[in-house]
Every structure is written in C-alpha cells, then in structure tokens.
C-alpha cells in the first residue's frame, strides 16, 4: 500500500483505493393496485468520487440528499443503476465470485444506530466473532483469542464477552460495532453517522477511538454525516452532496476556510458556533426546502434556492471545474466568492419559494414512511 498523506491527496499521482464514475442509484416509485411505475427517485444521480489510501473522506449534506444510498452502493450492497465502481483499479463488475467475496472482507461498515445493527439475541462475543467464523478457517480457540484482543482494542475488556447488547450503553454498543467491523482486518471502513446518536462526551471518545484504530489498523475511512463540526475535526477530505450529486470536493481545511459553492457556503454558515462572540461573516439563510429527488430541478440542481442564480443556471448542470484546489460544480464562482453579508440578508428576507408547496412536502413524508 502506498504511503499516502493528506497533503498529497489532491494530486492525482497515487492510485485511488475506491473510485466511482457517474454512479447512479434510482428507485422506482410504484403506485396503485397494479404497482405501475409512476416515477423515479434519483437518490444518487451521477457521482464521481475517488477515495485514496489513508484518507478520511467525509460525505456531507442534509438528510435525504443520498449519503447513505451512496455508501451502500459503494459498499456493493446494492448494484448501481448506472456507472462504475472500481476497487484498486478493477471495476466491481469485472470481479470473479471469489474476488467479490474477498472484497466483502476488505470493506466494512459501521452504522449510526448500534442498537439496530447488533442482534439482541447474541452475546457480544458471538456478534464480534461471527464474521471470523464466516470468512476465515481459524479455530474456535483462535477466534476467541482474537475477539478478546478486539474487545481490548476498542476499549472494552474481556468481561463484555458474554454480555448482551441491551446491557451496554450506546457508546459501548458502538464500540462493539467497530470491533466487529475491524475483525477481518479490512482496508476500508465506512462510517454512516457513527456518532450522531451519541451524547457529546461519548461522541468525543468514539472519535478518539476511531482515530487510534485508523492508525493501528492502517485504515481508510469514508464517513457520512450531517454534522459539519465533526467533519472539521475528523476528516482529511470532504465531498458535499446536494440532491444526489456531489457539488464540491476539497480538502477539509480548504473547504471550511474558503468554501466555493454557494450551497457549501450556506451549509457551513448554518452550523451553530459555540462562541457567543461569533458573528457570521457569510450569513446565508436559504429560501425554500430541498426539492424532491423524484423531480429534481433542471440545470444546476441548486438554482431554485441559490442566492446568485441567473437564467443560465437553469439550463445545464455545470460540470466540475477546478478552483484553487476545489472541484466545484458552479458557473459563477467569482460571484460566489463575494457572497457576503449584504447579499445574505437579501436572501434572508425572501420567503418560501414557489417550488416547495404542500404537495412536495407530502410526498417527502410519504417517502419517509
């Protein structure tokens, strides 16, 4: 494995561990007794992403923008509707059956809710050892020894071996989920909102643990979250998603100190800052709500809510362009740079926009059921 550091991640010299090209995940909407398809949810709608070895790559965006769907698709849990996903340069579709099985142990995932991802009828020991029984030929004794050392690695002692998930706190359950995920020595660990269900003091402990585990196990992380403060502290690279598309990619420092895309700017400016002296420089309150992924706007998907949109923005969805190390899908970057408090307040004043009506929100609710 190449020794890739964060600073190099921008350059294209290294080979990505995981690569997605124009990946789509569409779900049919079926209605009526005949279950006829009446529409399509474009949950992920053409994503390019490169995950380099050693990265902690965060995928951020508001709920429903397609983060979890993208992660599940990248994990190979779901076949993409379109596009190519490659692991170390080989497309998933070119892998043989045994290579696919081998890949399953290379990529593991930790979910937001440990409670629902751990089988309540099994002991912690059984939960952590299951992948080892399934994917290795190790003896029961070897596996037991391994489980004890995994428990130790995640800060739980061997005394947790015989306990059940319900006897553990949320933070301890998340440690078990992490132990299980690293049991097969994966290369890539996917984290779907790993600390969102936890209390602040527990959150910082799990983040510290993930940091240590990453070094010890030489891992690459792909983390999905809506919590930008966590991303700021934890990630090396960030991709920002809006309505099934990535609209900006940059290193973490670049993204937070100098966001380029108007949506990224709005998202960052909305995060409450734990500092009463803080005054927002780029204070942008977005009008309206996120449109339906079954009925995305034409052109730039963000144009109905964008404070600097022009007529041209409704025509074509801009391609990625490079701006000072950021990859951004926006045709008006110089204007976006000036999106200061003056324009921000103009945006504040505008109300709900016409696209978001009751029917849209009703459909949103229905989808969530």
């Amino acid at each position, binding site marked *: 494995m190449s020794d890739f550091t964060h600073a190099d991640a921008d350059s294209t010299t290294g080979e990505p561990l995981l690569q997605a090209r124009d990946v789509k995940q569409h779900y049919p909407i079926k209605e009526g007794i005949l279950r006829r398809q009446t529409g399509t949810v474009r949950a992920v709608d053409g994503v390019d992403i490169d995950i380099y070895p050693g990265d902690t790559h965060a995928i951020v965006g*508001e*709920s429903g923008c397609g983060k979890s769907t993208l992660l599940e698709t990248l994990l190979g849990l779901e076949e993409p509707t379109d596009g190519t996903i490659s692991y170390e340069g080989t497309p998933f579709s070119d892998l043989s059956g045994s290579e696919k099985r081998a890949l399953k142990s290379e990529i593991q995932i930790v979910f937001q809710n440990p409670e629902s991802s751990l089988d309540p009828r099994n002991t912690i020991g059984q939960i952590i050892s299951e992948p080892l029984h399934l994917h290795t030929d190790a003896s029961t004794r070897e596996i037991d020894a391994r489980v004890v050392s995994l428990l130790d690695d995640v800060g739980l002692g061997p005394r947790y071996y015989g306990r059940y998930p319900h006897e553990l*706190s949320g933070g301890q359950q998340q440690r078990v989920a992490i132990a299980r995920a690293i049991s097969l020595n994966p290369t890539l660990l996917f984290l779907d909102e790993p600390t969102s269900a936890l*209390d*602040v*003091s527990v*959150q*910082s*402990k799990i*983040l*510290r643990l993930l940091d240590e585990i990453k070094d010890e196990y030489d891992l690459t992380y792909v983390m999905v979250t*809506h*919590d*930008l*403060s*966590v991303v*700021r*502290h*934890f990630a090396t690279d960030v991709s920002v998603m809006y309505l099934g598309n990535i609209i900006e990619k940059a290193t*973490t*420092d670049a993204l*937070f100190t100098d966001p380029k895309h108007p949506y990224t700017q*709005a*998202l*960052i*400016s*909305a*995060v*409450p*800052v*734990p*500092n*009463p*002296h*803080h005054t927002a420089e780029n204070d942008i*309150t*977005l009008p309206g*709500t996120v449109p339906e992924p079954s009925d995305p706007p034409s052109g730039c998907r963000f144009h109905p809510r964008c404070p600097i949109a022009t007529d041209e923005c409704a025509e074509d969805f801009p391609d990625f362009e490079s701006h000072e190390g950021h990859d951004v899908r926006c045709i008006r970057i110089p204007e976006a740079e000036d999106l200061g408090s003056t324009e921000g307040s103009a945006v*504040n004043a505008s*109300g*709900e926009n016409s696209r*978001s*009506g*009751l029917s849209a*929100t*009703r459909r*949103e*609710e229905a989808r969530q059921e």
Partner: protein
Amino acid sequence: MTQPLLEIDDLHTNFDTNSGTVNALRGVNLTINEGERVGLVGESGSGKSVTAQSILRLVDSPGRIADGSITLNGRDLLSLSESGMQNVRGRDITMIFQDPSTSLDPVYSIRSQMIETIGHNRNMSDAEAESVAIEYLERVDMPNPERILDSYPHELSGGMKQRVSIAMALGFDPDLIIADEPTTALDVTVQKKVMEIFKDIVEEEDLSVLWITHNLGVVAEFCDKIAVIYAGEVVEYGSVYDIFDRPAHPYTRELLQTIPNIERADEELRVIEGTVPNMRDPPSGCAFHPRCPDAEPRCETTRPDRVDGREHQASCLVHDAEDQ
C-alpha cells in the same frame, strides 16, 4: 426588566421505581427573569426534561416532586389546584417539544387544533382565534397560512411542523416558553431558519424562554444566560459570556473542550473520562468527583454549596466563579 418571572428553589424530583428511587433532581435552583432566554444544557439523563416536566407539574409516573418550590410571578405553582395548574399550562407557560408531533394531533387539521387550543386558552371566538392563528403562522414565515390551516400534520415536513408548533405556542400569548430540544431533529439549514424566526418573535414580544439542549452552539447563538446541569443539579450558572469566557466549574470547562467546534479545528478534542452517574446511587460529596481532573480528597465527602441560579456561580469546592 430584571423582574424574576420564574423562580425554582431547591427542587427535588424523584422516581420511585421497583429497583429503587431515582433522584432525578437533587436541589435545582434557577431564576428566569422577564424577557430572558435561559439555556439549560447537559448530557442525556442529567435532568433537563424532568426540570421542564416539574415546572409544568407533568412529571411522568412514577415521578413526584419531593421538595422545593416553584413560583411564577410570585405565585406558588406547587400549591395550585390541578385546575389552577391547567390554566397555567397554555396560558402562562407553553411547551415546544423536540418532536413536533407531540403537540400536534394527527387526526385533526391544523385549523381545528389551532382554533381549539388558542380559542380555549384565550377565551376567543373561532373567528378571533383563526385570525390569531394566521397572524402567527405568518410570523413563523409559513408561505401560505390558509393552506397550512387546511392541512394535516402528516402533510408537513419536520421543519414546517416545528414552525406550526411554535406558532401555536406563541398564539397562546404565554409569559414563558419552555422548549425541549426544539431544533435537534432538524437539518442545520432548517434549524437556522427556525431559530432566527423564533428569536425575532421572542425579542419583539419580550418573552422569556427556557431553552433545553445538549448543543452548546445553539445556546451560544440563542441564549442570554446558561445553566449547566449535571446529575440533577445546576453546577454552574451565568451569562453566556461567563460560561464561555470564564467557566469556573471543571465540568463546564471539560464540556466546552469536548465539543467539536467548526471554527477551531486545530485544537485537539478533549475527552471527559468516565460516564454520567446512575441517579439511583449518585456519588457522595460532589457528584462530579469520580470524573473531575481537579478533585481533592474533600470532594468525595463534602457536597459543595449549590448555585443560586441568579448570578455567575459554580457549585465547586475548589473553583470559585469570582476568581475567573
């Protein structure tokens, strides 16, 4: 302006369960002045929601207020009859919950719910109540109040429902609003909008708010005063500037360093060792001593004086707010 509106004095609330008594509140002191926004912050299980429930005398069974007093405008709430208390709920104090569905009935239209509750609590005719409902829906920036009134809760998104529940709470014309994690379930951009709207109205009407949250970013943006609660007691109280610039209690200091701050990524996140205590058997002396980096032997046996909840104070044997 600095007239006390709500005064909580030495409040004890217990839950008598099969496996022992949970001492959820162990002597809470807190004053909310007229026009003041007070943030109550602490980790899960520290007693935030039980404080809110106690103020409204709606503590879940098997809980009971065991000791202490709560006064609103000088009136003793704990000695009111149940019907007197019903008048207080809705007229004087209203509550906004994390899950707006708690205050919205799924089977009735927004119109019938708003007219019923506003009309009942303010003795208004349906027509008067409807115009109040429309006024507040407009004030919470709802695009088309008439259409919202005709809709049912399931037809609205989470952010819209929360704005409707805020409009309903404001429509009561209360003196005090208790908001328990009202924006926690919302996306940041929606949270920002809801907070801005709420803050504007509260300022215009000079309302008092008790804002319960675990999010220190939200209190920094919204509140004037902060009460930090740990193991059923307020361990530090002060203005937002006192708490963020001059924290005295070791728990407050640790808490501030354990939260990720989008502005200060260079600082390493600190970790508070240990876990929150089990309130069936809270630690002796200072309840924070098993986790406190500054603990001294006396902290295990001596309970520090409680803060009075009026000026910057910390409940600590070692650190004094005045020295900060």
